[in-house]
């Protein structure tokens, strides 16, 4: 259960990475740091305004959206014609900057973060279930369903999927690809912010919490980079693996499990569990 809870956070991280990747074909290495910054902003709202947690969540989401919008417009947009390597390095630079800025603003200390969910176990027969785990799973699932609906049923969602499939054709449909870029960054950041608020009570709030994104990468690869259902399943599988590995595996290899899984998947099935590798065109 706890594995699934962690897994759903990984899934959200993976989703936010995939959203940007699908639209722009770039990988945002600063995703974790954006999550961290927005959670910090939400937390600051809690501290300063004594606002309820729900308000903090909203503040975090808005902050994330703003940050993403600004970064996309001021930095990423200018590099969009550059090579993927350049954009990678830029987002890496961003991640360093954001982490460092968070340290300067809020110190590198760890802070407790309130949870929406209680910590007392609920007994369901002989099974004890932690409300926190249930809550995280529930909230993540709700968010994923909302995302699914957005991508499936709304004009923006369809436009984003269209851009992911064929940018030129999307333009011919009257879709502004640039707006889709911005929207993807904003949406991804908002998803990240929710993930941040959900996971902060568990991993605590600190400038280092963005490192959770690395598991998001693994989850996304596991699911086949670019596939959204894949990202969800990849996240869950990774969470459960990470949770179970210490139980069943010798100490010497258990910590390598996520990475070994990732390498194995890449080599055996480069498209991930769900993705397809596009055939080579000549």
């Amino acid at each position: 259960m706890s594995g699934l809870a962690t897994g759903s956070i990984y899934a959200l991280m993976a989703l936010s990475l995939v959203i940007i990747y699908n639209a722009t074909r770039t990988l945002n290495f600063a995703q974790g740091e954006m999550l961290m910054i927005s959670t910090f902003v939400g937390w600051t709202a809690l501290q300063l305004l004594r606002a309820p947690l729900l308000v903090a969540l909203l503040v975090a989401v808005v902050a994330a959206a703003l940050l993403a919008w600004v970064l996309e417009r001021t930095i990423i947009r200018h590099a969009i014609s550059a090579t993927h390597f350049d954009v990678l390095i830029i987002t890496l630079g961003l991640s360093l900057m954001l982490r460092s800025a968070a340290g300067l603003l809020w110190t590198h200390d760890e802070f407790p973060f309130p949870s929406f969910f209680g910590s007392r176990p609920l007994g369901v027969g002989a099974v004890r279930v932690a409300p926190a785990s249930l809550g995280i799973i529930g909230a993540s699932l709700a968010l994923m369903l909302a995302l699914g609906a957005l991508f499936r049923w709304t004009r923006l969602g369809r436009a984003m999927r269209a851009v992911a499939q064929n940018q030129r054709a999307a333009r011919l449909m009257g879709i502004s690809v640039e707006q889709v870029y911005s929207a993807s960054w904003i949406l991804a950041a908002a998803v990240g912010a929710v993930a941040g608020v959900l996971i902060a009570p568990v991993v605590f709030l600190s400038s280092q919490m963005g490192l959770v994104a690395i598991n998001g990468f693994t989850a996304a690869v596991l699911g086949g980079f670019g596939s959204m259902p894949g990202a969800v399943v990849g996240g869950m599988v990774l969470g459960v693996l990470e949770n179970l590995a210490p139980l069943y595996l010798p100490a010497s290899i258990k910590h390598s499990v996520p990475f070994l899984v990732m390498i194995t998947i890449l080599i055996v099935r480069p498209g991930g569990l769900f993705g397809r590798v596009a055939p080579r065109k000549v």
Partner: protein
Amino acid sequence: MITRSILLFLLVVALSVSRAAAEPGVSDTEIVIGGSNSFSGPLAYTGEQITKFGVDLYLRVVNDAGGIHGRKVRTIYYDDGYRPQDSVANTKKLVEQDGVFAIIIPQGSPPVVATLEYLEEHKVPMLFPYQSSPVTRARRYVFQGMTLSDRSSRMMIDYLAGTRKYKKFAALYQDDEYGKSFLAAFEKDLGRFGLKLTAAESVKRGVTDVSAQIAKLHAARPEVTFLVLVPGPAAQALRERQKIGWTDTLMVSTGPLTDEKYLALATDAANGVEGLSLWPDPATSDLPGVKLYRAYMVKYFPKNEPNRYSLAGYFAGMLFTEAAMRAGRNLTRESLITALESIKGFESGILPPLTIGRDHETQKQGFWVRVEKGRFTPLTDWLKSE
């Protein structure tokens, strides 16, 4: 082209030989000390607190009072982000470029150990490294800061297995130098009581989900479970224990872990937890030295909350000042070492009277605490680790 570059080259040579020195880092008006520390990376918070809000806090007090024999103390810190190669580079730069007099409070085993040989070779004192591996014990140019793991372990096991008569021990430890050195020490000290660790589970640094490990330890039914972790995962372990309703074990935290941060993160899950405390409570202790520390903190860094890390740095600054005072106006690296070695029964108002012996350790004690109503309440006086 060639002639130009050779000329340039000669100019550089000429400039570089101009530095002449008496004792490095000591001038008529100034003493320069420095250190490589974590200002980024996993231990950035600790690094910043022990240096800028710790050592520097005390030195500002000293400087504002006129300095050490008329010399103001200046500090230089470089960031190594916990990478050993960067700490080597920084330390070389401090010694060779900045010409520091001594290295103060470097942090973390790998970065510290990486520079040990170099500093000894160049006879530069390494003062009060903030790490717990015994590798720094009894070296001429090193004066260990934090209580070493084997001493912590001895105090903990003597108290729990001796005084309190517990028999079944388990440990949840961080999968690195810090965790493993404690684990080895526990095994050894338990051995003296004819006991063994019943179960031990490791946590990778930076991982926060410890539910599986807690479940496994729970299954082993230990009377005492040691937490050899850093605040985040340790608080997580306590909450996980609360979550699964595991009540019949005594959770015990090691010296480096027993800190207010860990309580704040664990909230009510920390109640009843015990541990070895290396420092008096920086926020509430009535000891005169700690009160003074708080007063200075309010004066110089009003925005910074008192905490154990800055207190440790503050104490390091105090000890350096004491030794440099004793060394007199003719301060050299050798005279500093002699002065440090001469310290006997030094009253800091923070730790018990300090005598530095051949082992060059400056902190050997701790006392036992239990968490009650969100604070550490002392259960014992200072314990002995000899």
